[in-house]
């Protein structure tokens, strides 16, 4: 049944959580840097979304996303401390 397979996938994902968290921890600053680099960041200059300048929404949204990702990584990797 399709949901069994899906459940199996889920169990595997769960078992490999520490490894995936480590990978994310290593790659996170590079993702952030790439998202802040000129070609990408320049796309958001000039327009507004619901009255808010899009560039502001983008930068602060990205910032918040990075913080949440770091929170998740820290949560997953926290050893018995």
């Amino acid at each position, binding site marked *: 049944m399709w949901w069994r397979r899906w459940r199996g996938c889920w169990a595997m994902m769960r078992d490999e959580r520490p490894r995936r968290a480590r990978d994310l921890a290593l790659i996170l600053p590079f993702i952030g840097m790439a998202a802040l680099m000129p070609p990408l*960041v320049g796309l958001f200059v000039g327009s507004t979304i619901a009255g808010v*300048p899009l560039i502001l929404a983008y930068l602060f949204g990205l*910032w918040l996303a990075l913080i949440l*990702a*770091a929170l998740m990584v820290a949560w997953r990797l926290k050893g018995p401390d």
Partner: protein
Amino acid sequence: MDIRQLALLAAIGFAGLLFLIAFLCDREGRPRWLTSPIVYTLSISIYCTSWTFYGAVGSAARNGLEYLTIYLGPTLVFVGFWALLRKILRIAKRDSITSIADFISSRYGKSDSVAAVVTVLALLAAAPYIALQIKAIAGSFQVLGSAPEDLTGVAAASPDPVVAFWITAGLALFTILFGTRTIDINERHFGVVAAIAVEALVKLVALVAVGALAIWGVADGPADLFARMEASAVPLDAPFGMRWVGLILLSGAAIICLPRQFQVAIVENEREGHLFTAAWLFPLYLLVMSLFVLPIAVMGLDVLPSGSNPDMFVLTMPIAAGRTDIALLAFLGGFSSGTSMVIVSCIALSTMISNHLVMPLALRAPGMRLQGGGDVRRFLLLSRRFSICFILLLGFVYLRTGATGEGLASIGLIAFAGATQVLPALLGALYWEGANRRGAVVGLAAGGIVWAYTLFLPNILSGVAWWDAVAMAGPFGLDWLRPGALFGLETGDALMHALFWSLAFNALGLVVGSLSRLPTPIERVQAALFVGVFREGADEGTLRGGDASADQLFDLAQRVMGADRAYDIFRNYARARGQVTEFPLVDDAFIGHLERRMAASVGAASARAMILSVTGSETISLDELVQIADETARLMTYTTEITKKSDEIERAATQLKAANERLRSLDRQKDEFLSQVSHELRTPMTSIRSFTEILSGTPDLAPDEREHFIEIIHAESIRLTGLLDEILDMSVVESGDMERALEPVNPEIALGQAIDACLGLLRTGDVRLEVARVEGAVTVEGNLARLSQVFINILSNAIKYNTSPAPVITIESRVEGAEYVVVIGDNGAGVPAGEAQSIFEKFSRGRSAGAHTGAGLGLSISHAIVTRSGGTLRLLPSAGGARFEVRLPMLASEAEPLA
């Protein structure tokens, strides 16, 4: 009461409160909340100095979103804490690192020179940074004191020297009281950490309050704010180019390389787990701070008179809005951010100066022999206090001479660029085992000189005639050496220009310097310990014994740490190892332990020098290292050879044993066969002899009786001949000398002949025959008579040895691929498992062979014949009865149509 007097009172009262907090926290039994990750995170936010509190708004008003870079860089570093910060932290904790200079010198062979270069660089870079704080605090006083109708805050851009001086003096006193009351065993200051955590909260609350006032008090809520933002002069579409990227990288580097950041994030760290919280909480703190900067900038530009100093908007805007309470809070926030930065910076730098500049000089000075000298501890404290005064004086001088008329942010960036010169050496220390002391010194010196020449000096000396001439035409008229356009690189951005060239020379120096010579043994050891800190079993490299007594070592330790603490260390070490004496046994491990504890007070290089002065032993020399390596290599080769040889011997022995076993088995078979053959030959011979004797001894024998006896003799002779034929056959086939050559034959014919030949036997045994044969012609290479002999052998065996009450024989022939296969099976008892192996052996007979005729050569002969024809004969595994399979390769031309 005048607001200025109120502010002064508030500042003094606040300082008193901080002091109380610090005092309470330094007393024994620190409160639990002090060790929480939140306090740790708040202490890291001394990153947000006056520069952030006042300067970020100014930066936003002038350059739009550029101010965000200063907070995005550290965000990326903390979000990626796993790879970088965690590694630094792990090493620093293991080695009791006291400062960034200590960290780097420790990695590059515990070198004095590296530590000294880093310290000087950090000191130079700190000057503009501290000047910035003095300027901001003095400026904020001035703004509060100016007339209510004058809210431009322009005067704050060049503060009154007298006010600035008294603020500097106050800061010096404050810092000395805070930071140098004791020399902590791990160079940690719990009270200070608690105080700056409180200050971090104050500045956050203050900035948020001013921001909230801007959004809901001055503007009419967020919608109005964004509308005014559109119309304001704040450039939201600031170019996201080189400078944007450069500033993010620069601030990311600064959060690790600034001595005070290293102090709070690494040295003062309580547990590695706290970093896991700071990884997201510190970026969150920065985000909240940054979020409220833009509204203040927008509304400041909107409501304050044009030409106002945007660096003071945080203070002037609440006053303009008539909120003195919020203005006072903002003043305290600014005061907090300035003082906390100065305190921690001075603590970190004074530690570096006393450990890496003063101490090494004192150790070398002829008059200051340790054995005869005074208490090192008191000496250290004194040198730290002087260092603090010196650092603040340097900041004050910079404020007076430097071109500090610019915005706060641009002064801060000069300091960032200076501190960042440590980055290549730091990254090399963590990730490149080949980096060595020469590379570190060359890189740091080159980067520092280029930074000073292109950024620091132009800032201090602008306006001085000779320097302006150099800046215009280059030194000695060398145009390509102009500090503003080195090698003709015109960027129009002095910071990016300086950053590019200084880091380029720095990194190049590190690489070339490191590759120009081999690392020394201690550099190798330290490199492995730093780069491989997460490897299993990475432990401190230790000095080797020498001939120091525990008394000598204690004498040394108590000079550095005080008698009580030294005694504790000695006794605890001895106790932990179950030694009953008061002082532990002096061995390599203890000396290493003591060195680490002392390094926590005076830094790795000085600690090593002191220990060496007592033990008189050097770490492992290169010669010794080479010798040890040689010995190890020799030993390993020798061991490998022995292992190889013993393997060979074992293999040979096994083969010999197998061969011996086989020989013995063959010998046994031969004996059995000989006795069998002699028995077989003897029976017909005996019978023939006895009947001939009867015939010749009894002439009056009845004719029919005589006839009968002669028949018996004849039959026995035939049996004898058959037996001899079989033995002859065997030897012929075995010797490989078949009397007839191989030729293309149809094996089906041979099979048919065999079945015909056995019909008589089949009938007498009342055996049922089931035949399934291949259709059409098959051709194999062989000999018809021999093949027929093979089939007859197998068939007759199947009939003879079949013990079933209703015997059935199955014959099946088929073509499989390019092979002709015949399977002959029966439903008898089958071949016992033990005999399946030897059934094709020469002279072998089944267990019930005694009941039947034949010498037991049939299967062996058949096997030899089939093998000679290129085929195989084998016993198939089966549940009941024996199944023999003959496989013969078919001739290609004939195989096609049959396949």
